[in-house]
């Protein structure tokens, strides 16, 4: 009864619209950041020094690489190289996990120094530094949640590739989850210099 309707471009456009909503979601936090930075430039530089630039840099490289692998996965599936596609998806997921583990160590170190939202130590550091770390934790935390969602999504689609439900002439799902993953990368591209690199 139902007439099969397929619109890959429409599906991609819908995904882009969804990404817009994600950008606005993060932009709320970036607005708070911009206003606080304008108010407390010195304190922000000081606080930024307390973040570990090595963790930040490694995670930047990890995410950029994962963005590459998932982009390559699209080319692979377009060329009908299913095995390559799967490998690339799995590498992406592994990189996502590496990112989260890295984040775990970074955060545990900071928390052990008494730096976390609402801590007593933060109260002693003064309003500017508190504002920095509050925003840092909430932004990076929200970003971490997106890593989790994106990784899961890619895992599900990879399973569908393996089962032959996503194929070389029907791969919009893979494309859309890749788009989502790139967005996660984009957010980090801004988050990294704004939090780790201000002097």
């Amino acid at each position, binding site marked *: *009864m*139902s*007439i099969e*309707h397929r*619109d890959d*471009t*429409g*599906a991609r*456009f*819908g995904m882009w*619209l*969804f990404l*817009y*909503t*994600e950008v*606005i*979601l*993060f*932009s*709320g*936090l970036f*607005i*708070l950041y911009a*206003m*606080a930075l304008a*108010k*407390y430039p010195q*304190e922000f530089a000081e606080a930024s020094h307390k973040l570990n630039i090595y963790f930040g840099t490694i995670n930047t490289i990890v995410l950029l690489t994962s963005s590459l692998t998932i982009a390559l996965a699209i080319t692979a599936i377009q060329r009908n190289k299913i095995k390559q596609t799967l490998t690339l998806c799995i590498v992406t997921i592994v990189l996502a996990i590496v990112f989260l583990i890295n984040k775990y160590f970074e955060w545990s170190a900071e928390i052990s120094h008494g730096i976390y*939202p*609402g801590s007593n130590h*933060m*109260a002693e550091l*003064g*309003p*500017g*530094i*508190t*504002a*920095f770390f*509050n*925003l840092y*934790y*909430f932004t990076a935390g*929200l970003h971490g949640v997106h890593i989790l969602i994106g990784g899961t999504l890619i895992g599900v689609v990879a399973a569908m590739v393996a089962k032959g439900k996503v194929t070389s002439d029907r791969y919009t799902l893979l494309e859309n989850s890749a788009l989502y993953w790139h967005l996660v990368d984009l957010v980090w591209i801004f988050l990294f210099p704004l939090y780790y690199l201000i002097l």
Partner: protein
Amino acid sequence: MTKIALKNTGFYSESPRSGILGWLLSTDHKRIGIMYLFCIVTMFLVAVCLGLALRLELIAPGPTIMGPQTYNATFTVHGIIMIFLVIIPSIPAAFGNLVLPIQIGARDVSFPKLNLLSWYCYIIGAVLAVIAIFSGGGAPDTGWTFYVPFSTQTTTNVNMAVTGALMLGFSSMLTGINFVTTIHRLRAEGMGWGRLPIFIWTLYSTAWIQVLATPMLGITLILIVLERVFGAGLFDAARGGDPILYQHLFWIYSHPAVYIMILPGMGVISEIIPTFSRKPLFGYWAMAISSLAIAFAGSLVWAHHMYASGMSDFAILIFSFLTFIVAIPSAIKIFNWVSTLYKGSIQLAPPMLHALAFIFNFAIGGLGGLALGAAASDIHLHDTTFVVGHFHYTMFGGTGFAFFAALHYWLPKFTGRMYSHKPAVIAWALLFVGFNVTYMAMQAVGIQGMPRRYYDYLPEFQTLNVVATVGSWVLAVGLIMMFVNLWNGIRKGTPVGKNPWGSATLEWSIPSPPPLENFGEKDPVVTKGPYDYKGVIADEY
């Protein structure tokens, strides 16, 4: 025409599943639309009862039927339900779903499953909002705006109410994504941009706002919950935060949201006015472009809600100026409706009466908005019942009446039955009079200085408050009469043909109620504009 049970006609009779699951798991845009409609009307009636209770409390100074805490909770819940569960989804989610695909000649929306998911988000949000009233530390008492610092400190059940609002935002956003994509991708052959009914243009503009503004509400609400859980001090000035920034974030969404509320209403009116004037809409492109312009300009003016908050004078200047710009496209619309009426052969059927009431009420609300947009007068009027009167004029007198107009206009299409006109007209008159008495009195007493959100007031305000409360009873009678009449119409009204009103848009070219997938075997090909009434004849009923 012979009478057949509703469930044996049109899309009601065609479903892969039977019974209630045929509804709950259906991805048919019409079924989803009907489900939205049902939930929205239910929630509306609940919140109306709360509103009447508020009015009753205000009939005399001092506690009459409730104390301060109950009053605070009541206006908060009334506001949350009316805004997030009724007005925002009212026209876009209910009538947008019912009408949009048909008006552009499509069989469904672009993402039917997402559409159903969006309905479930709505339901989850509604359930959470209702549970929040009865659980935790009591019903939220922050006002629907959840302003900090109170919202991060009160012991009432703000967390759950906020989570509910978050789900409702998600629902609205998904609907927006769906509609933008649908309008771009699924227009029938011949349905160029210049042939889209204005209702579609307004839904399109609305959908963009839903996509680009709603996430800001999302992050704001998330931050409130995080703040309540962690106590980080994000909005606490002593800890580097800024309470005014909360208001910025909140209104960056909530001002555009008032256009989510009003634009689709304007779209409905733009369909009804030409139909019942038997004249093409005056200034089609002005109407289409002004919809987009309103949507865009709506993103520029949010801080006019904050003149009294302590933000900078420079910002007050800028936002006051920008606010006046939005008045232009809104005024264009009013002028065009009136010009459409001019020398038309006007037929005062119930939908038309509601549409005319819309123009009247919205003009008053809009002009009141200018008084509030001008910083100087707003400092005096801010947080008085003038504001409450103003937004009821736009949201209730505007969108609410547009919703009633849409009910009277499209229900015959989607049920195949016509309600009786005489009670509909009487109900309309009661609504119109009751509405204006209630809120004009509230505006007047607001100008005298009565603050909003208080259960009590000075004795000199009593006369006008009594007038407002009596008005609200007339309003209530009108509402009961209208809904009873519509319900009777659905159950035992006379069957109608394809086109009882003689309208020229596509939905009137298919049976009432429409079949599943709307257009049968062949996709429609559009050859004329939406307001081209040449050769269109209204069916007898």
